[in-house]
Protein backbone atom coordinates (compact mmCIF):
# COMPACT_ATOMS: atom_id res chain seq x y z
CA UNK A 1 0.00 0.00 0.00
CA UNK A 2 2.92 2.27 0.53
CA UNK A 3 3.34 2.46 -3.21
CA UNK A 4 0.05 4.26 -3.45
CA UNK A 5 1.49 7.18 -1.58
CA UNK A 6 4.67 7.42 -3.62
CA UNK A 7 4.81 10.35 -6.00
CA UNK A 8 6.72 8.29 -8.53
CA UNK A 9 3.85 5.86 -8.80
CA UNK A 10 1.30 8.56 -9.49
CA UNK A 11 3.58 10.25 -11.97
CA UNK A 12 3.78 6.94 -13.79
CA UNK A 13 0.01 6.55 -13.75
CA UNK A 14 -0.24 10.07 -15.09
CA UNK A 15 2.15 9.34 -17.93
CA UNK A 16 0.26 6.22 -18.92
CA UNK A 17 -3.00 8.16 -18.77
CA UNK A 18 -1.46 10.81 -20.99
CA UNK A 19 -0.31 8.29 -23.57
CA UNK A 20 -3.72 6.69 -23.59
CA UNK A 21 -5.33 10.11 -23.93
CA UNK A 22 -3.52 10.66 -27.19
CA UNK A 23 -4.27 7.13 -28.41
CA UNK A 24 -7.93 7.41 -27.51
CA UNK A 25 -8.14 10.88 -29.03
CA UNK A 26 -7.20 9.33 -32.33
CA UNK A 27 -9.98 6.82 -31.88
CA UNK A 28 -12.38 9.59 -30.96
CA UNK A 29 -11.64 11.33 -34.25
CA UNK A 30 -12.18 8.09 -36.11
CA UNK A 31 -15.28 6.85 -34.35
CA UNK A 32 -16.66 9.62 -32.22
CA UNK A 33 -16.56 11.98 -35.16
CA UNK A 34 -16.52 10.00 -38.38
CA UNK A 35 -18.27 6.87 -37.18
CA UNK A 36 -15.44 4.48 -38.15
CA UNK A 37 -15.28 1.21 -36.24
CA UNK A 38 -11.51 1.02 -35.96
CA UNK A 39 -10.50 -1.90 -33.77
CA UNK A 40 -6.93 -1.90 -34.92
CA UNK A 41 -5.74 1.39 -33.43
CA UNK A 42 -2.82 -0.23 -31.66
CA UNK A 43 -1.29 -1.08 -35.03
CA UNK A 44 -0.64 2.59 -35.75
CA UNK A 45 0.95 2.99 -32.35
CA UNK A 46 3.31 0.17 -33.27
CA UNK A 47 4.08 1.67 -36.67
CA UNK A 48 4.96 5.02 -35.09
CA UNK A 49 7.18 3.50 -32.40
CA UNK A 50 8.95 1.03 -34.63
CA UNK A 51 9.57 3.49 -37.46
CA UNK A 52 11.21 5.91 -35.08
CA UNK A 53 13.30 3.24 -33.35
CA UNK A 54 14.44 1.64 -36.59
CA UNK A 55 15.43 4.97 -38.12
CA UNK A 56 17.39 6.00 -35.05
CA UNK A 57 19.17 2.73 -34.42
CA UNK A 58 19.66 1.32 -37.89
CA UNK A 59 19.98 4.45 -39.97
CA UNK A 60 21.50 6.68 -37.35
CA UNK A 61 18.89 9.40 -37.80
CA UNK A 62 18.33 12.12 -35.29
CA UNK A 63 15.32 11.53 -33.08
CA UNK A 64 13.92 14.88 -34.21
CA UNK A 65 13.73 13.61 -37.77
CA UNK A 66 12.77 10.06 -36.98
CA UNK A 67 9.85 11.01 -34.77
CA UNK A 68 7.91 13.07 -37.35
CA UNK A 69 8.56 10.32 -39.85
CA UNK A 70 7.14 7.82 -37.39
CA UNK A 71 3.98 9.89 -37.22
CA UNK A 72 3.86 10.16 -40.98
CA UNK A 73 4.34 6.42 -41.32
CA UNK A 74 1.41 5.83 -38.97
CA UNK A 75 -0.76 8.17 -41.02
CA UNK A 76 0.35 6.39 -44.17
CA UNK A 77 -0.66 3.15 -42.50
CA UNK A 78 -4.10 4.61 -41.99
CA UNK A 79 -4.35 5.50 -45.65
CA UNK A 80 -3.12 2.08 -46.63
CA UNK A 81 -5.74 0.41 -44.48
CA UNK A 82 -8.55 2.73 -45.47
CA UNK A 83 -8.22 2.87 -49.22
CA UNK A 84 -9.37 -0.68 -49.89
CA UNK A 85 -11.54 -1.15 -46.84
CA UNK A 86 -13.54 1.99 -46.10
CA UNK A 87 -16.23 1.08 -48.57
CA UNK A 88 -16.99 -2.13 -46.72
CA UNK A 89 -19.97 -2.29 -44.43
CA UNK A 90 -19.34 -1.40 -40.82
CA UNK A 91 -19.05 -4.85 -39.31
CA UNK A 92 -16.70 -6.14 -42.02
CA UNK A 93 -14.59 -3.05 -41.64
CA UNK A 94 -14.29 -3.64 -37.89
CA UNK A 95 -13.12 -7.21 -38.42
CA UNK A 96 -10.65 -6.20 -41.09
CA UNK A 97 -9.12 -3.58 -38.79
CA UNK A 98 -8.48 -6.18 -36.12
CA UNK A 99 -6.90 -8.36 -38.75
CA UNK A 100 -4.73 -5.45 -39.83
CA UNK A 101 -3.45 -4.87 -36.33
CA UNK A 102 -2.65 -8.55 -35.88
CA UNK A 103 -0.85 -8.61 -39.22
CA UNK A 104 1.29 -5.67 -38.15
CA UNK A 105 2.11 -7.46 -34.92
CA UNK A 106 2.90 -10.61 -36.87
CA UNK A 107 5.25 -8.81 -39.18
CA UNK A 108 6.96 -7.14 -36.25
CA UNK A 109 7.38 -10.51 -34.55
CA UNK A 110 8.72 -12.33 -37.56
CA UNK A 111 10.76 -9.85 -39.53
CA UNK A 112 13.56 -10.09 -37.02
CA UNK A 113 16.11 -8.45 -39.25
CA UNK A 114 13.98 -5.35 -39.49
CA UNK A 115 12.38 -5.06 -36.09
CA UNK A 116 14.38 -7.19 -33.72
CA UNK A 117 11.62 -9.77 -33.75
CA UNK A 118 10.01 -11.03 -30.59
CA UNK A 119 12.94 -9.90 -28.53
CA UNK A 120 11.97 -6.35 -29.19
CA UNK A 121 14.03 -3.25 -29.67
CA UNK A 122 16.98 -4.58 -27.74
CA UNK A 123 17.76 -6.72 -30.74
CA UNK A 124 17.54 -3.86 -33.24
CA UNK A 125 21.24 -3.30 -33.44
CA UNK A 126 23.93 -5.74 -34.50
CA UNK A 127 24.18 -9.04 -32.69
CA UNK A 128 25.65 -8.82 -29.26
CA UNK A 129 24.96 -5.16 -28.72
CA UNK A 130 21.97 -4.04 -26.72
CA UNK A 131 20.84 -0.91 -28.44
CA UNK A 132 18.98 2.10 -27.26
CA UNK A 133 16.96 4.45 -29.38
CA UNK A 134 16.29 7.11 -26.86
CA UNK A 135 19.72 8.53 -26.25
CA UNK A 136 18.83 11.87 -27.72
CA UNK A 137 15.43 11.86 -26.09
CA UNK A 138 16.89 11.19 -22.64
CA UNK A 139 19.23 14.12 -23.05
CA UNK A 140 16.34 16.30 -24.12
CA UNK A 141 14.31 15.12 -21.16
CA UNK A 142 17.13 15.96 -18.71
CA UNK A 143 17.45 19.35 -20.30
CA UNK A 144 13.78 20.05 -19.78
CA UNK A 145 13.96 18.71 -16.26
CA UNK A 146 16.70 21.12 -15.33
CA UNK A 147 15.21 24.11 -17.09
CA UNK A 148 11.91 23.63 -15.35
CA UNK A 149 13.43 22.65 -12.06
CA UNK A 150 11.53 19.40 -11.80
CA UNK A 151 12.39 16.81 -9.21
CA UNK A 152 12.48 13.63 -11.28
CA UNK A 153 12.50 12.28 -14.80
CA UNK A 154 9.05 10.81 -14.13
CA UNK A 155 7.68 14.25 -13.42
CA UNK A 156 9.36 15.60 -16.55
CA UNK A 157 7.84 12.94 -18.75
CA UNK A 158 4.49 13.68 -17.16
CA UNK A 159 4.79 17.31 -18.15
CA UNK A 160 5.96 16.52 -21.67
CA UNK A 161 3.24 13.99 -22.38
CA UNK A 162 0.45 16.13 -21.03
CA UNK A 163 1.71 19.28 -22.71
CA UNK A 164 1.58 17.42 -26.00
CA UNK A 165 -1.79 15.90 -25.16
CA UNK A 166 -3.29 19.29 -24.35
CA UNK A 167 -1.98 20.82 -27.55
CA UNK A 168 -3.39 17.95 -29.57
CA UNK A 169 -6.71 18.05 -27.76
CA UNK A 170 -7.01 21.77 -28.42
CA UNK A 171 -6.11 21.49 -32.08
CA UNK A 172 -8.63 18.67 -32.50
CA UNK A 173 -11.32 20.58 -30.69
CA UNK A 174 -10.74 23.60 -32.91
CA UNK A 175 -10.66 21.51 -36.05
CA UNK A 176 -14.04 20.03 -35.19
CA UNK A 177 -15.59 23.45 -34.97
CA UNK A 178 -14.67 24.21 -38.54
CA UNK A 179 -16.87 23.50 -41.52
CA UNK A 180 -14.64 20.48 -42.13
CA UNK A 181 -15.49 19.18 -38.69
CA UNK A 182 -19.14 19.82 -39.37
CA UNK A 183 -19.01 17.52 -42.37
CA UNK A 184 -17.43 14.84 -40.22
CA UNK A 185 -20.21 15.10 -37.71
CA UNK A 186 -22.77 14.90 -40.49
CA UNK A 187 -21.15 11.71 -41.73
CA UNK A 188 -21.32 10.25 -38.27
CA UNK A 189 -25.00 11.12 -38.10
CA UNK A 190 -26.13 9.86 -41.51
CA UNK A 191 -23.55 9.27 -44.16
CA UNK A 192 -26.01 8.73 -46.98
CA UNK A 193 -27.65 12.05 -46.24
CA UNK A 194 -24.22 13.67 -46.18
CA UNK A 195 -23.41 12.09 -49.52
CA UNK A 196 -26.60 13.39 -51.09
CA UNK A 197 -25.62 16.86 -49.87
CA UNK A 198 -22.61 16.64 -52.10
CA UNK A 199 -19.99 15.57 -49.56
CA UNK A 200 -17.38 13.05 -50.64
CA UNK A 201 -17.91 10.77 -47.66
CA UNK A 202 -15.14 8.37 -48.60
CA UNK A 203 -12.52 11.11 -48.68
CA UNK A 204 -13.54 12.45 -45.28
CA UNK A 205 -13.50 9.02 -43.70
CA UNK A 206 -10.05 8.42 -45.10
CA UNK A 207 -8.84 11.69 -43.61
CA UNK A 208 -10.33 10.84 -40.23
CA UNK A 209 -8.71 7.42 -40.31
CA UNK A 210 -5.31 8.83 -41.25
CA UNK A 211 -5.45 11.62 -38.67
CA UNK A 212 -6.53 9.20 -35.96
CA UNK A 213 -3.69 6.94 -37.00
CA UNK A 214 -1.22 9.82 -36.78
CA UNK A 215 -2.36 10.50 -33.23
CA UNK A 216 -1.85 6.85 -32.39
CA UNK A 217 1.63 7.22 -33.84
CA UNK A 218 2.35 10.05 -31.40
CA UNK A 219 1.11 7.84 -28.57
CA UNK A 220 3.47 5.15 -29.82
CA UNK A 221 6.40 7.53 -29.71
CA UNK A 222 5.75 8.50 -26.12
CA UNK A 223 5.27 4.85 -25.22
CA UNK A 224 8.65 4.10 -26.72
CA UNK A 225 10.33 6.93 -24.85
CA UNK A 226 8.69 6.23 -21.54
CA UNK A 227 9.60 2.55 -21.43
CA UNK A 228 12.94 2.73 -23.30
CA UNK A 229 12.20 -0.63 -24.80
CA UNK A 230 9.32 -2.38 -26.48
CA UNK A 231 8.50 -5.55 -28.34
CA UNK A 232 5.65 -6.67 -30.58
CA UNK A 233 3.76 -8.10 -27.63
CA UNK A 234 3.37 -4.59 -26.26
CA UNK A 235 0.99 -3.87 -29.09
CA UNK A 236 -1.74 -6.40 -28.52
CA UNK A 237 -5.41 -5.79 -29.40
CA UNK A 238 -5.93 -5.38 -25.67
CA UNK A 239 -4.61 -1.83 -25.92
CA UNK A 240 -7.14 -0.98 -28.58
CA UNK A 241 -9.87 -2.26 -26.30
CA UNK A 242 -8.55 -0.09 -23.49
CA UNK A 243 -8.78 2.90 -25.81
CA UNK A 244 -12.38 1.98 -26.60
CA UNK A 245 -13.11 1.66 -22.94
CA UNK A 246 -11.73 5.14 -22.40
CA UNK A 247 -14.07 6.49 -25.04
CA UNK A 248 -16.97 4.69 -23.42
CA UNK A 249 -16.00 5.97 -20.00
CA UNK A 250 -15.53 9.56 -20.95
CA UNK A 251 -18.18 9.88 -23.58
CA UNK A 252 -18.31 9.43 -27.30
CA UNK A 253 -18.13 12.44 -29.51
CA UNK A 254 -16.59 14.86 -27.05
CA UNK A 255 -12.94 15.82 -27.30
CA UNK A 256 -12.51 16.87 -23.68
CA UNK A 257 -14.17 13.70 -22.44
CA UNK A 258 -11.11 11.76 -23.59
CA UNK A 259 -8.66 12.90 -20.89
CA UNK A 260 -11.34 12.34 -18.27
CA UNK A 261 -11.87 8.79 -19.46
CA UNK A 262 -8.13 8.22 -19.65
CA UNK A 263 -7.52 9.44 -16.13
CA UNK A 264 -10.32 7.29 -14.74
CA UNK A 265 -9.00 4.35 -16.70
CA UNK A 266 -5.43 4.98 -15.59
CA UNK A 267 -6.60 5.08 -12.04
CA UNK A 268 -8.56 1.84 -12.31
CA UNK A 269 -5.84 0.07 -14.22
CA UNK A 270 -2.87 1.16 -12.19
CA UNK A 271 -4.79 1.22 -8.97
CA UNK A 272 -5.86 -2.39 -9.34
CA UNK A 273 -2.23 -3.30 -9.81
CA UNK A 274 -1.80 -2.92 -6.12
CA UNK A 275 -4.78 -4.83 -4.90
CA UNK A 276 -2.77 -6.24 -2.05
CA UNK A 277 -5.51 -6.06 0.46
CA UNK A 278 -8.05 -8.71 1.37
CA UNK A 279 -9.65 -10.45 -0.51
CA UNK A 280 -7.26 -9.84 -3.36
CA UNK A 281 -4.23 -10.69 -1.29
CA UNK A 282 -5.43 -14.27 -1.28
CA UNK A 283 -4.36 -14.63 -4.91
CA UNK A 284 -0.98 -14.96 -6.54
CA UNK A 285 0.25 -12.09 -8.64
CA UNK A 286 -0.50 -13.59 -12.05
CA UNK A 287 -3.97 -14.45 -10.84
CA UNK A 288 -4.40 -10.87 -9.77
CA UNK A 289 -3.41 -9.77 -13.27
CA UNK A 290 -6.22 -11.85 -14.70
CA UNK A 291 -8.62 -10.49 -12.11
CA UNK A 292 -7.79 -6.93 -13.09
CA UNK A 293 -8.62 -7.63 -16.70
CA UNK A 294 -11.83 -9.36 -15.67
CA UNK A 295 -12.77 -6.22 -13.77
CA UNK A 296 -12.01 -4.12 -16.84
CA UNK A 297 -14.12 -6.40 -19.02
CA UNK A 298 -16.95 -6.10 -16.53
CA UNK A 299 -16.68 -2.34 -16.57
CA UNK A 300 -16.96 -2.30 -20.36
CA UNK A 301 -20.05 -4.48 -20.28
CA UNK A 302 -21.68 -2.54 -17.47
CA UNK A 303 -20.99 0.77 -19.20
CA UNK A 304 -22.52 -0.45 -22.42
CA UNK A 305 -25.59 -1.60 -20.55
CA UNK A 306 -26.08 1.22 -18.17
CA UNK A 307 -24.44 4.38 -19.42
CA UNK A 308 -23.48 4.05 -23.06
CA UNK A 309 -23.06 7.77 -23.39
CA UNK A 310 -20.21 7.71 -20.88
CA UNK A 311 -19.59 10.02 -17.97
CA UNK A 312 -19.67 13.21 -19.96
CA UNK A 313 -21.51 12.23 -23.07
CA UNK A 314 -24.68 13.82 -24.24
CA UNK A 315 -27.57 11.40 -24.44
CA UNK A 316 -29.08 13.31 -27.30
CA UNK A 317 -25.94 13.12 -29.32
CA UNK A 318 -25.21 9.60 -28.22
CA UNK A 319 -23.45 7.88 -31.01
CA UNK A 320 -23.93 4.32 -29.80
CA UNK A 321 -27.55 4.45 -30.94
Amino acid at each position, binding site marked *: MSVLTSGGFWAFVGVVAGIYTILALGLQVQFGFAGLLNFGQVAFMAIGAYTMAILVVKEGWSTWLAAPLGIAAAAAGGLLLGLPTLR*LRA*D*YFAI*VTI*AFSEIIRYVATNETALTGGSQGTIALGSIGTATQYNGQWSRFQSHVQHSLGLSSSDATMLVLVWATAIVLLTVTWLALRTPWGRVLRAIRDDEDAAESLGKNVFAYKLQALALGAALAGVAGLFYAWEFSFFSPDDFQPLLTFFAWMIL*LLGGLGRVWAVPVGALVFGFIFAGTRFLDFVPFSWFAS*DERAYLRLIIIGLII*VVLVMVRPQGLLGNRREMVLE
Partner: protein
Amino acid sequence: MGQLVANGLVTGSVYAIAAVGVSLVYGILRLVNFAHGDFMAFGALIAYAVNGPLHQSMILAALAGMAATALLSVALDVVLWKPLRTRRAGFMSLFLAAIGLALILRQSLLFAAGSGPRSYRVNPYRVFVIGSIRLSEAQVIAIATAAGTILVVGLFLARTTTGRILRATADDRALSAVAGIDVGRATRIAWVISGLLAGLAGVLAALVEYSFDPNFGFQLLLPVFAAVVLGGIGSAYGALAGGLALGIAQEVSTWSGFAGGVNPVYKPVVAFTVLALALLVRPQGIFGSARVA
Protein backbone atom coordinates in the same frame (compact mmCIF):
# COMPACT_ATOMS: atom_id res chain seq x y z
CA MET B 1 0.64 -30.90 -52.34
CA GLY B 2 -1.88 -33.56 -51.51
CA GLN B 3 -0.63 -33.43 -47.95
CA LEU B 4 -1.13 -29.71 -47.87
CA VAL B 5 -4.69 -30.01 -49.10
CA ALA B 6 -5.38 -32.65 -46.50
CA ASN B 7 -3.95 -30.44 -43.77
CA GLY B 8 -6.01 -27.63 -45.15
CA LEU B 9 -9.13 -29.72 -44.89
CA VAL B 10 -8.39 -30.33 -41.25
CA THR B 11 -7.87 -26.68 -40.42
CA GLY B 12 -10.73 -25.71 -42.67
CA SER B 13 -13.08 -28.10 -40.96
CA VAL B 14 -12.44 -26.52 -37.61
CA TYR B 15 -12.91 -23.06 -39.06
CA ALA B 16 -16.08 -24.15 -40.82
CA ILE B 17 -17.74 -25.59 -37.74
CA ALA B 18 -16.93 -22.53 -35.66
CA ALA B 19 -17.93 -20.18 -38.44
CA VAL B 20 -21.40 -21.69 -38.75
CA GLY B 21 -21.99 -20.97 -35.08
CA VAL B 22 -20.96 -17.35 -35.50
CA SER B 23 -23.10 -17.01 -38.57
CA LEU B 24 -26.22 -18.43 -36.93
CA VAL B 25 -25.97 -16.04 -34.03
CA TYR B 26 -25.33 -13.10 -36.31
CA GLY B 27 -28.25 -14.04 -38.48
CA ILE B 28 -30.70 -14.07 -35.59
CA LEU B 29 -29.29 -11.39 -33.36
CA ARG B 30 -27.16 -9.16 -35.58
CA LEU B 31 -24.46 -9.75 -33.03
CA VAL B 32 -20.84 -10.37 -34.01
CA ASN B 33 -19.90 -12.75 -31.23
CA PHE B 34 -16.41 -11.69 -30.43
CA ALA B 35 -16.34 -14.15 -27.55
CA HIS B 36 -16.78 -17.15 -29.84
CA GLY B 37 -13.08 -17.98 -29.76
CA ASP B 38 -13.17 -18.04 -26.00
CA PHE B 39 -16.25 -20.25 -26.10
CA MET B 40 -14.12 -22.64 -28.09
CA ALA B 41 -11.35 -22.49 -25.53
CA PHE B 42 -13.91 -23.04 -22.79
CA GLY B 43 -15.22 -26.15 -24.50
CA ALA B 44 -11.71 -27.45 -25.02
CA LEU B 45 -10.81 -26.92 -21.39
CA ILE B 46 -13.95 -28.55 -20.03
CA ALA B 47 -13.19 -31.51 -22.25
CA TYR B 48 -9.69 -31.55 -20.84
CA ALA B 49 -11.02 -31.58 -17.32
CA VAL B 50 -13.20 -34.57 -18.15
CA ASN B 51 -10.53 -36.37 -20.14
CA GLY B 52 -7.58 -35.65 -17.90
CA PRO B 53 -8.25 -35.42 -14.16
CA LEU B 54 -11.59 -37.20 -14.46
CA HIS B 55 -10.05 -39.83 -16.68
CA GLN B 56 -12.96 -40.26 -19.06
CA SER B 57 -12.85 -41.17 -22.72
CA MET B 58 -12.28 -38.56 -25.34
CA ILE B 59 -15.77 -38.93 -26.73
CA LEU B 60 -17.38 -38.31 -23.37
CA ALA B 61 -15.03 -35.40 -22.85
CA ALA B 62 -15.95 -33.87 -26.17
CA LEU B 63 -19.65 -34.21 -25.48
CA ALA B 64 -19.18 -32.68 -22.06
CA GLY B 65 -17.28 -29.79 -23.60
CA MET B 66 -20.01 -29.21 -26.15
CA ALA B 67 -22.80 -29.39 -23.60
CA ALA B 68 -21.01 -27.04 -21.22
CA THR B 69 -20.43 -24.49 -23.96
CA ALA B 70 -24.04 -24.67 -25.05
CA LEU B 71 -25.12 -24.09 -21.48
CA LEU B 72 -22.77 -21.14 -21.15
CA SER B 73 -24.10 -19.59 -24.35
CA VAL B 74 -27.70 -19.78 -23.23
CA ALA B 75 -26.84 -18.50 -19.76
CA LEU B 76 -25.08 -15.51 -21.26
CA ASP B 77 -28.07 -14.80 -23.44
CA VAL B 78 -30.23 -14.58 -20.36
CA VAL B 79 -27.80 -12.50 -18.35
CA LEU B 80 -26.33 -10.22 -20.98
CA TRP B 81 -27.80 -10.32 -24.46
CA LYS B 82 -31.47 -10.32 -23.60
CA PRO B 83 -31.19 -7.27 -21.32
CA LEU B 84 -29.32 -5.49 -24.09
CA ARG B 85 -32.03 -6.39 -26.57
CA THR B 86 -34.64 -5.02 -24.21
CA ARG B 87 -32.72 -1.77 -24.15
CA ARG B 88 -32.76 -1.80 -27.94
CA ALA B 89 -28.99 -1.85 -28.05
CA GLY B 90 -27.67 -1.26 -31.51
CA PHE B 91 -24.90 -2.96 -33.38
CA MET B 92 -22.13 -0.92 -31.78
CA SER B 93 -23.26 -1.62 -28.21
CA LEU B 94 -23.49 -5.33 -28.92
CA PHE B 95 -20.05 -5.38 -30.50
CA LEU B 96 -18.46 -3.63 -27.55
CA ALA B 97 -20.31 -5.81 -25.06
CA ALA B 98 -19.06 -8.88 -26.91
CA ILE B 99 -15.53 -7.57 -26.62
CA GLY B 100 -15.95 -6.98 -22.92
CA LEU B 101 -17.38 -10.47 -22.58
CA ALA B 102 -14.48 -12.00 -24.50
CA LEU B 103 -12.08 -10.27 -22.16
CA ILE B 104 -13.92 -11.54 -19.09
CA LEU B 105 -14.15 -15.07 -20.44
CA ARG B 106 -10.57 -15.40 -21.47
CA GLN B 107 -9.16 -13.93 -18.30
CA SER B 108 -11.52 -16.10 -16.25
CA LEU B 109 -10.25 -19.18 -18.04
CA LEU B 110 -6.69 -18.08 -17.40
CA PHE B 111 -7.53 -17.39 -13.80
CA ALA B 112 -9.14 -20.76 -13.31
CA ALA B 113 -6.75 -22.86 -15.33
CA GLY B 114 -3.53 -20.92 -15.59
CA SER B 115 -1.70 -20.27 -18.81
CA GLY B 116 0.16 -23.57 -19.02
CA PRO B 117 -0.27 -25.85 -22.01
CA ARG B 118 -2.41 -28.92 -21.83
CA SER B 119 -3.05 -31.99 -23.94
CA TYR B 120 -5.69 -34.62 -24.20
CA ARG B 121 -4.85 -38.19 -23.50
CA VAL B 122 -4.53 -39.29 -27.09
CA ASN B 123 -1.77 -41.00 -28.95
CA PRO B 124 -0.04 -38.43 -31.13
CA TYR B 125 2.03 -41.00 -32.93
CA ARG B 126 -0.68 -43.06 -34.50
CA VAL B 127 -0.68 -42.21 -38.17
CA PHE B 128 -2.90 -43.12 -41.09
CA VAL B 129 -1.33 -43.26 -44.50
CA ILE B 130 -3.40 -42.80 -47.66
CA GLY B 131 -1.21 -42.75 -50.71
CA SER B 132 1.35 -40.02 -50.11
CA ILE B 133 -0.70 -38.39 -47.39
CA ARG B 134 0.00 -38.90 -43.72
CA LEU B 135 -2.61 -37.92 -41.21
CA SER B 136 -2.45 -38.25 -37.47
CA GLU B 137 -5.30 -39.91 -35.63
CA ALA B 138 -6.43 -36.53 -34.38
CA GLN B 139 -6.55 -35.12 -37.87
CA VAL B 140 -8.60 -38.01 -39.18
CA ILE B 141 -11.02 -37.64 -36.29
CA ALA B 142 -11.28 -33.95 -37.02
CA ILE B 143 -12.09 -34.39 -40.68
CA ALA B 144 -14.54 -37.22 -40.06
CA THR B 145 -16.33 -35.39 -37.27
CA ALA B 146 -16.43 -32.19 -39.24
CA ALA B 147 -17.84 -33.87 -42.30
CA GLY B 148 -20.50 -35.53 -40.21
CA THR B 149 -21.33 -32.32 -38.37
CA ILE B 150 -21.54 -30.29 -41.54
CA LEU B 151 -23.90 -32.82 -43.00
CA VAL B 152 -26.09 -32.87 -39.92
CA VAL B 153 -26.17 -29.09 -39.61
CA GLY B 154 -26.83 -28.65 -43.30
CA LEU B 155 -29.73 -31.08 -43.24
CA PHE B 156 -31.05 -29.58 -40.05
CA LEU B 157 -31.16 -26.10 -41.52
CA ALA B 158 -32.63 -27.21 -44.80
CA ARG B 159 -35.11 -29.88 -43.80
CA THR B 160 -36.36 -29.47 -40.28
CA THR B 161 -39.00 -27.01 -39.18
CA THR B 162 -36.69 -25.56 -36.56
CA GLY B 163 -34.01 -25.11 -39.15
CA ARG B 164 -36.35 -23.25 -41.42
CA ILE B 165 -37.53 -21.12 -38.54
CA LEU B 166 -33.94 -20.21 -37.83
CA ARG B 167 -33.33 -19.21 -41.40
CA ALA B 168 -36.55 -17.25 -41.59
CA THR B 169 -35.79 -15.34 -38.42
CA ALA B 170 -32.32 -14.63 -39.71
CA ASP B 171 -33.82 -13.21 -42.87
CA ASP B 172 -36.23 -10.89 -41.18
CA ARG B 173 -36.70 -10.85 -37.44
CA ALA B 174 -39.62 -8.46 -37.30
CA LEU B 175 -41.53 -10.18 -40.02
CA SER B 176 -40.99 -13.54 -38.41
CA ALA B 177 -42.37 -12.31 -35.13
CA VAL B 178 -45.45 -11.02 -36.88
CA ALA B 179 -45.80 -14.31 -38.72
CA GLY B 180 -46.15 -16.04 -35.39
CA ILE B 181 -42.68 -17.45 -35.08
CA ASP B 182 -41.48 -17.64 -31.49
CA VAL B 183 -38.44 -15.47 -31.92
CA GLY B 184 -37.35 -16.00 -28.32
CA ARG B 185 -37.26 -19.75 -28.82
CA ALA B 186 -35.43 -19.41 -32.11
CA THR B 187 -32.87 -17.26 -30.35
CA ARG B 188 -32.28 -19.82 -27.63
CA ILE B 189 -31.97 -22.58 -30.19
CA ALA B 190 -29.45 -20.54 -32.14
CA TRP B 191 -27.35 -20.06 -29.03
CA VAL B 192 -27.53 -23.75 -28.16
CA ILE B 193 -26.41 -24.81 -31.61
CA SER B 194 -23.76 -22.12 -31.71
CA GLY B 195 -22.50 -23.25 -28.32
CA LEU B 196 -22.44 -26.93 -29.31
CA LEU B 197 -20.55 -26.11 -32.48
CA ALA B 198 -18.13 -23.83 -30.67
CA GLY B 199 -17.42 -26.51 -28.09
CA LEU B 200 -16.89 -29.09 -30.81
CA ALA B 201 -14.63 -26.82 -32.83
CA GLY B 202 -12.62 -26.05 -29.71
CA VAL B 203 -12.11 -29.69 -28.86
CA LEU B 204 -11.17 -30.58 -32.43
CA ALA B 205 -8.76 -27.66 -32.69
CA ALA B 206 -7.16 -28.64 -29.39
CA LEU B 207 -6.92 -32.24 -30.55
CA VAL B 208 -5.23 -31.30 -33.78
CA GLU B 209 -2.83 -28.84 -32.20
CA TYR B 210 -2.03 -31.46 -29.61
CA SER B 211 -1.12 -28.95 -26.92
CA PHE B 212 -3.16 -25.86 -26.18
CA ASP B 213 -3.65 -23.12 -23.62
CA PRO B 214 -6.56 -20.80 -22.82
CA ASN B 215 -5.27 -18.17 -25.22
CA PHE B 216 -5.73 -20.26 -28.33
CA GLY B 217 -9.33 -19.24 -28.72
CA PHE B 218 -8.51 -15.72 -29.80
CA GLN B 219 -5.90 -16.92 -32.26
CA LEU B 220 -8.54 -19.02 -33.92
CA LEU B 221 -11.13 -16.31 -33.77
CA LEU B 222 -9.74 -14.14 -36.50
CA PRO B 223 -9.53 -16.79 -39.21
CA VAL B 224 -13.03 -17.89 -38.16
CA PHE B 225 -14.32 -14.36 -38.60
CA ALA B 226 -12.52 -14.19 -41.90
CA ALA B 227 -14.35 -17.35 -42.91
CA VAL B 228 -17.71 -15.89 -41.89
CA VAL B 229 -17.10 -12.68 -43.80
CA LEU B 230 -15.74 -14.51 -46.80
CA GLY B 231 -18.82 -16.67 -46.96
CA GLY B 232 -21.12 -13.74 -46.45
CA ILE B 233 -22.15 -12.74 -42.99
CA GLY B 234 -25.44 -14.31 -41.95
CA SER B 235 -25.19 -17.20 -44.37
CA ALA B 236 -24.53 -20.49 -42.61
CA TYR B 237 -23.70 -22.28 -45.85
CA GLY B 238 -21.36 -19.46 -46.74
CA ALA B 239 -19.59 -19.86 -43.43
CA LEU B 240 -19.01 -23.54 -44.15
CA ALA B 241 -17.65 -22.83 -47.58
CA GLY B 242 -15.58 -19.93 -46.31
CA GLY B 243 -14.05 -21.98 -43.53
CA LEU B 244 -12.99 -24.82 -45.79
CA ALA B 245 -11.74 -22.46 -48.46
CA LEU B 246 -9.61 -20.49 -46.05
CA GLY B 247 -8.21 -23.56 -44.36
CA ILE B 248 -7.10 -25.03 -47.65
CA ALA B 249 -5.83 -21.71 -48.99
CA GLN B 250 -3.74 -21.22 -45.89
CA GLU B 251 -2.03 -24.57 -46.14
CA VAL B 252 -1.63 -24.62 -49.89
CA SER B 253 -0.01 -21.21 -49.87
CA THR B 254 3.05 -22.73 -48.23
CA TRP B 255 3.60 -25.03 -51.21
CA SER B 256 7.12 -24.70 -52.47
CA GLY B 257 5.77 -24.61 -56.00
CA PHE B 258 4.59 -21.06 -55.42
CA ALA B 259 8.04 -19.54 -55.73
CA GLY B 260 9.20 -21.11 -52.53
CA GLY B 261 5.86 -20.79 -50.88
CA VAL B 262 4.72 -18.57 -48.07
CA ASN B 263 6.63 -18.77 -44.82
CA PRO B 264 4.41 -20.98 -42.64
CA VAL B 265 4.56 -18.43 -39.88
CA TYR B 266 2.52 -16.12 -42.02
CA LYS B 267 -0.37 -18.51 -42.58
CA PRO B 268 -2.90 -16.36 -40.75
CA VAL B 269 -1.85 -13.47 -42.91
CA VAL B 270 -2.73 -15.57 -45.93
CA ALA B 271 -6.21 -16.06 -44.55
CA PHE B 272 -6.67 -12.32 -44.38
CA THR B 273 -5.18 -11.59 -47.71
CA VAL B 274 -7.60 -14.03 -49.28
CA LEU B 275 -10.43 -12.37 -47.40
CA ALA B 276 -9.33 -8.88 -48.38
CA LEU B 277 -9.04 -9.79 -52.04
CA ALA B 278 -12.41 -11.50 -52.00
CA LEU B 279 -14.06 -8.50 -50.41
CA LEU B 280 -12.59 -6.21 -53.01
CA VAL B 281 -14.20 -8.22 -55.71
CA ARG B 282 -17.44 -9.07 -53.95
CA PRO B 283 -18.00 -6.82 -50.94
CA GLN B 284 -20.88 -8.81 -49.55
CA GLY B 285 -19.02 -12.09 -49.41
CA ILE B 286 -19.63 -15.19 -51.51
CA PHE B 287 -23.15 -15.92 -50.37
CA GLY B 288 -23.96 -12.58 -48.87
CA SER B 289 -26.81 -10.43 -50.08
CA ALA B 290 -25.97 -7.21 -51.84
CA ARG B 291 -26.60 -4.04 -49.93
CA VAL B 292 -29.92 -2.60 -50.96
CA ALA B 293 -29.62 1.17 -51.01
